[in-house]
């Protein structure tokens, strides 16, 4: 059995708005192993995006512990969280979130620049990532010159260029038509096959079946874990 990559223990997230407390997550326990492909599913507002934000160190839990790659990360400083985000986590967002003033190449290069990677290594990593997603020929284009599916491929390339420990995908097909959605899901499946650990938030049961394991959340709690005996490839 592969070692644990992500371990959440009793993670709670409470939002305070004026005098109203909203419990977005309540006592989440989660263990994700290296190389796993996990889907987090649930209805809108159930807390799955909040969970992904905590996993991606974009937010911190109100209570509970979070161990990433063997290191407790639930109470790190902002710069340290930024450093771990940059090195250990690759994000794929629903709305692609590419920077419009940067070319495809520069978008993919950006997290590596923040890492301080030497230019030569950067170039090799960016080229390799773009080739993996089939976008090398569009390296000099601006995002606005690409279709939605192509933009999401670039976003995937950006996420995996730095060889992160885990890819976090938040509704990666949410803004795509079915054809492009299928294509991106296939890309993620290929990456998983290549050894990548993927955690994907989706409300679409069809896409959730691509994962090896699906965690169902409702009202901020894990209500069901479902292991796919034959994940769709």
């Amino acid at each position, binding site marked *: 059995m592969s070692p644990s990559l992500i371990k959440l223990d009793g993670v709670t997230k409470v939002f305070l708005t004026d005098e109203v407390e909203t419990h977005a997550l309540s006592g989440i326990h989660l263990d994700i192993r290296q190389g796993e492909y996990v889907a987090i599913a649930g209805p809108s507002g159930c807390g799955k995006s909040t969970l992904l934000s905590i996993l991606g160190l974009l937010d911190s839990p109100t209570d509970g512990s979070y161990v990433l790659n063997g290191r407790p990360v639930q109470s790190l400083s902002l710069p340290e969280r930024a450093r771990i985000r940059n090195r250990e986590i690759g994000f794929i967002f629903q709305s692609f979130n590419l920077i*419009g003033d940067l070319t495809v190449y520069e978008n993919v290069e950006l997290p590596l*620049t923040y890492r301080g990677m030497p230019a030569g290594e950067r170039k090799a990593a960016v080229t390799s990532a773009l080739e993996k997603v089939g976008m090398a020929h569009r390296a000099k284009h601006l995002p606005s010159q690409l279709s939605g599916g192509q933009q999401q491929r670039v976003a995937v390339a950006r996420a995996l260029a730095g060889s992160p420990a885990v890819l976090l995908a938040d509704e990666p097909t949410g803004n795509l038509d079915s054809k492009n959605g299928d294509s991106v899901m296939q890309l993620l499946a290929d990456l998983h096959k290549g050894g990548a650990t993927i955690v994907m938030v989706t409300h679409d049961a069809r896409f959730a079946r691509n994962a090896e394991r699906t965690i169902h959340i409702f009202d901020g709690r894990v209500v069901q874990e479902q292991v796919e005996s034959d994940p769709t490839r």
Partner: protein
Amino acid sequence: MLADLKFAVRVLAKSPGFTAAAILVLALGIGANSAVFNLVNALLFAPPSYLRPAEVVQVFSRDKKNPKTFRGFSYPTYRDIREKNSAFTDTVAFNLALVGLGEKDHTRRAFTALVSSNYFSLLGIATARGRAFLPEEETPGRNLPVAIVSHTYWKKRNFDPDLVGSSIVINGRAFTIVGIMPEGFTGTMSLFSAEVWLPLGVYDQVANDFSEDNKTSLRDRVGTQLLILGRLKPGLTATTATTQLQTLAANLEQAYPVEQKDQTFVMTPVPRLSSSTAPSENDDMSMLGGLLLGMSAVVLLVACLNLANMLLARGTARHKEIAIRLALGGSRGRIIRQLLIEGFVLSLFGGAAGLILALWSSDLLVASLVTLMPADLVFPAGTQPSVLVATLGFCVLGTLIFALGPALKLSRGDVLTHLKEHAGEDAVRRPWKFLPRHPLVVAQVALSLALLTAAVLFIRGAGKAADVETGLKTERNFVLEVDASLGGRDPQQAGELYRLLGEKLAALPGVEHASISTTVPFGMVTISKRVQRAGVRPGPDEKPATAAEGLAFNANFNSVGADYFQAVGLPVLRGRAFTASEVASPTGPGVAIIDEALAKKLWPDGEALGQRIQFTLPNALAAKDGGSKGVSFSEDANGDIKPGETLEIIGITPTTRTALFQQSPGTALFLPFARGFRSNVFFHVKFATLPRGQETAATDLIRRAVRDIDTTLPILSLRTFAQHLDANISL
């Protein structure tokens, strides 16, 4: 860093409207600061135009019994100091003078420096062309007509290659140009330079002191005409040098007990902004420089606040980009750096435009001042390294002011919220609800209002000054300024010339009144004299508190012709004006006309008319009021009034203003022209009628009258009184 720069340029290029507006705002802010720094730097900080200035000091002659009193040196005393001192490697003597510089068909006023032959060698500056003065040219009375001209003068002659060896007409006499000084040389002063340097050997023929004190020959030991500079010997401290100088002063006092009575020598660093027989500090100019820098800093601050608001407004559209960068692991410092680089790129463009603006406005300032001043204004040409560095500094400062705030705010954004599309600012809760919602806008508006208020007050002040009630009736009044000494006339010749000219002007068709005067109301120069009641001479230790006890008062002095009061429309309220014989006779009865303000001060409870006044002895205690605040000089000497002579007050005039920015009307004292002769005079010519648009014809008429009397008499200015007032406002 390079990637950030590239990105910054790309982002700015993508928004040309915003970028152009930002560059314009910054150009104004940075340009104003660069222009003011350029001026202040040239005035106060730039190294002087001579070699190793730290070694050069000015020597002053101080009265031991009255340490606040200083005087100049005679040439013999200078020679003694030069030959007998042990503190300096060399000493030089010099003074400034106004001369008439002959041009093609007219004479204009110009500043000259009369210098000892070693002047340039002590300052360590060689002539650019030709030679320096020879020792024999310095000898008083040798009167060898040689001159060295400034680089600016050479430039005005289109860099004539044959200038050295050619002639220049000074006070009606031809001088041979023997040298040209290098570009940028201004002597010991900053910015302002003599146009011509003459040897001390021609001093008696050329010098035209502001004050009437120095009418002795240069070779006379009682003279006080000269200023002295010395270059300290290597390794000598100021204290040691001062001790040695004071020993020398004591020896000279022993050798010349009359001429050097109570005189000791002190020295200070050479003043940058003046040439005076008394030590002066640059405090006033430093304060003015600080004020100008402060005001321009506020302009930069307002510009930066304006830009900060523009960036904040634009930042709303960039929240998402910043959130993406943060999500991808960009540290907050890295994001701030990127935003500051973007700001700095903007600043650099703004700075470049501002620098062009600053150089252009400096040139404009110099051009406008040059027309008003008889001295060379030597402004460093082109972009000085110090100004470049300062501009770069303003760019950095500007960047920090306008970009740091928005950068801090943007980099603190709610990543999760902004990662979602169309996330707005309102999603962020404001913890400090009691603070203004947009403090930058509040600060910007406040500062803009302050600047606007200052500008409005200034314009209003200038407007009020322009509309000042002069108390005179100056319609159809022309002011003619001439100086016969600049044409080489001695005082006797000048007096006769002025008499003839006065008669000629009065006889011109349409002229109602014409009169001479030594100063003109609202002019550049005022003369102040101290007067007290006749017959009262308080002892040196007495401190009179009232006019009856002998308290003296400053008064603006003017010696005038018989028709002066009618020519300028100033009524004599009580008594009478001067008669023609009083005006013409230097030995006639002592009479004076004063204004009501001075009358009230001298006789607060009685009638001044018919009373007698006298000029004070030097250093008499004077009340701290009265006199002009403008460019003025004070005379303790009695001029053409004999010692002990008293003056009968024969007339009282209304109190009027004499300067545009005078807080309150001053006090005035008028004497008959012959009792207060000066070679630089004004003629007031009042026409009975003057049809609209006939001003040019009238000035032509006056000009022809001057030429009919003497074709070589320098006309220094000729304009209507209204134009004269306007010129003073523009100054």
